[in-house]
């Protein structure tokens, strides 16, 4: 038995991935980072090895590894992670030549948006409910007990939206939702699943690219940009200062921001962060954006939300 396990162990060792040239830790979607890595290798001949998980798991791994960092490039789904890393001095300042047409609010020292997600109402067209037009519609009796929303503690996008609601004195909408029987259901996917099957009619604070991709697969779900405005969640790509392959890492960032890279971003229905890439979906310039100016600190935002939904 020992010899057998030894043989298996040797087999495992042989299957170990070769040492990567660029190591990328990325939040989903998995298809995007897979395409980017493949395209990058094809273009430059440099191998890119990918670890893909949720933003939270990527951050946890980075934190546990911090005495001996492994990653060169990090892609997260939450802009807050970039400001936090930058404040801790973990990021390598780098302005990619391809980032010229990226608007200023989508870049900072050490980070630039790879793509941008928008927050929407995800509505099941077969739910038998009228099509909602604005956030406050979901507090109407037609949607009684038929609305889910992701937990802002688990979803960066929902958090940003709640933050904007508090900053713009719109928290009565949240209260209206709660009174109308809306439920808080974990992360983005856990909120969308009951809407797909029809248990619920709409997700308040759904994510546009996830909903559009589901619709493209034939699910009867539609992404609706609310009339009173919404928020966007830029997805920062950043190079760690600790990287041993900074030149290759810079090339990877350049590739992601190249026309080819940005087209790959658009292919998963995210908004490209470069304004000169045209794709067939509402882009940042087309959206009415709510300001987050004057919003309370993170703990207070979450506490205010909990006060309403508990």
């Amino acid at each position: 038995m020992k010899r057998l396990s030894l043989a298996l162990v040797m087999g495992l060792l042989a299957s170990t991935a070769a040492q990567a040239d660029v190591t990328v830790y990325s939040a989903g979607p998995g298809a995007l980072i897979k395409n980017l890595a493949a395209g990058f290798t094809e273009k430059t001949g440099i191998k890119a090895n990918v670890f893909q998980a949720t933003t939270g798991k990527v951050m946890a791994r980075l934190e546990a590894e911090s005495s001996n960092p492994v990653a060169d490039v990090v892609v997260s789904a939450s802009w807050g992670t970039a400001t936090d890393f930058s404040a801790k001095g973990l990021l390598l300042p780098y302005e990619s030549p391809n980032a010229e047409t990226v608007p200023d609010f989508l870049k900072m020292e050490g980070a630039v948006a790879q793509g941008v997600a928008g927050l929407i109402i995800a509505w099941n067209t077969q739910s038998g409910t009228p099509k909602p037009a604005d956030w406050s519609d979901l507090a109407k009796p037609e949607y009684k007990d038929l609305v889910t929303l992701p937990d802002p503690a688990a979803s960066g996008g929902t958090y940003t939206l709640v933050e904007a609601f508090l900053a713009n004195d719109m928290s009565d909408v949240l209260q209206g939702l709660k009174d109308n029987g809306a439920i808080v259901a974990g992360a983005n996917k856990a909120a969308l699943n009951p809407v797909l099957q029809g248990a619920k009619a709409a997700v308040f604070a759904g994510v546009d690219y996830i909903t559009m991709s589901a619709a493209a697969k034939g699910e009867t779900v539609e992404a609706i940009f609310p009339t009173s405005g919404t928020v966007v969640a830029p997805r920062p790509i950043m190079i760690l200062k600790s990287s041993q392959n900074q030149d290759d890492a810079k090339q990877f960032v350049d590739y992601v921001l190249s026309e080819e890279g940005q087209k790959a971003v658009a292919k998963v229905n995210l908004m490209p962060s470069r304004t000169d890439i045209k794709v067939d979906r509402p882009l940042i310039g087309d959206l009415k954006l709510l300001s987050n100016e004057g919003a309370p600190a993170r703990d207070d935002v979450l506490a205010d939300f909990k006060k309403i939904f508990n």
Partner: protein
Amino acid sequence: MAGGSVTTGAEGSVLLKWIATLGLLIVVAIPCLFIVVQAIFPEFGSGSFAAPFSLFFKTLSDPALFGMAGNTLLLGVGTVICAAVFAVPLAALRALYRVPGALIWDGLLLIPFMIPPYIAALGWIMTLQPRGYLEQVTGFNMASLLFSVSGIMLIMGLNTFSVVYFVLSRTFETIGARYSDVGRVFGAGQWRSFWRITFPLAMPGLAASLLLVFAMSIEEYGTPAALGRRIGFEVLVTGIENRISEWPIDLPGSATLSLVLVGMALVAFMVQRWLLNRRDYRIVGGKPQASDKRSLGVWAVPATLLFAFVALLATGLPILAILATALSRTISGGLKPSNMGLDNFRELLGAGSDGLIALGNSLMLGTTTALLAGLLGAITAYSVVKGRGRFRIVLDALSITPNSLPGVVVGVGIILAWNQPWLPITPYNTPFILLLAYVCILLPQPVRYATASLHQLGDNLESAARVSGAGPLRAFTRIVFPLILPSMVTAMILVFAVASRELVASLLVAPVGFQTIAVYIWQQFDQGSAGLGMAMAFCAVLITTLIPLALISLLRWLTRGSVAGLS
């Protein structure tokens, strides 16, 4: 059979004791140590020992902690009760009577353990929620039961009761009818002799398996996360997981909460130990025993119906839900013929697909983990039960610790331990790190199983071997090991099943670019391809069920009855 303290007879081999110590040190103690250090020194991840205890007491004084700890206990006890209610009658029937189709029921009841709990929870949601599969077929839904605390207990009981069923039916079988026959000769009725003689003798198996269920349920993340979050039912493990999985990350906080969880499991473990050490349960004494089972008579039909009902609940419904989702082109399309097809399976099993690679990786890791954990578990249990000295309590406690550590915390401990910059070579970022994580998480299973069967093993057999000139090592390999092998095979099957679908630790420590079954499934769900994820889950359940069954049949054929109990 007299009461009183257990006497240690044959002395355990010194070599085996050292192997057990060293193995536990590397696999369990080192990651645990790093978790404790992380709880105390918040900056430890970046190599600094600054500000000790600064977050430790803050986390422990959080008023929400009491609620979480209370909910954890409630859930653990509730799940144990549900599991026992499902398992004990079935196990007793299966062991003491000739149940029609017994082997088929065994196979079907093995499956709940092979279904990853997060998949099962998702299956239940998709079946019972409004407009779910149940409503599409029958017109009514059971959402109010599903999204409730008792619903969570019931589902976790269904997920775990097979552990109790298999251990207990094996134990009842070993006890056989011999002792209760004595009772009946002295005038006790059938029920009375069962409750006064057979059932008490089965205490080691019952206590060990219920402890496992308790530890599994307070450590389980998927079900309480999927169902409990909607009703605001937070347990320790979801609190821990949220601290690690939701940015901003709070490693020290999650490490501290893990210590609370480990404390709980250790208390349960002490209770089990106290129960077992009060009496003598040795029943395997080398005397041949006839193991003829009784006929059920008129009760054959009700007994079969009971088996069928439980198998339908625990295996049938989750599997059907998985299959329905896997065969659906879209979720919103529902169970219409026009929406059904094999597209997902075709994509999954296409030549050279990621899915096939992930399957291969997981099967290899699962097999290796089962062999290593089984071996280390048997050696540890032997050193604990037959060895001497206070030291063995430390070994025993260490071997149960990972059972109460959430997988994600084991993952963090392993990264902290094995990614130190001064290590000359490290398994980190190779598949070995997953092997270490799996053996750590799953070691308690073979240890518990081996301990339970060693407790039933008298010393006279081993003593006889020693008197006849065998050394302690030889006595272990030739006498003890074959006698506990049936239990070990069961344990190793469970290890294989869990290791080949473990999610939370794999997601965190998987080497860059390395996919396992669970990581693949998770990524499909994350991309919104629930059908593809469920197709993989279905294939994984099928394979992890068929491989062990084939293995058992092979072993039975090879040994041809020379190893008792492989049936």
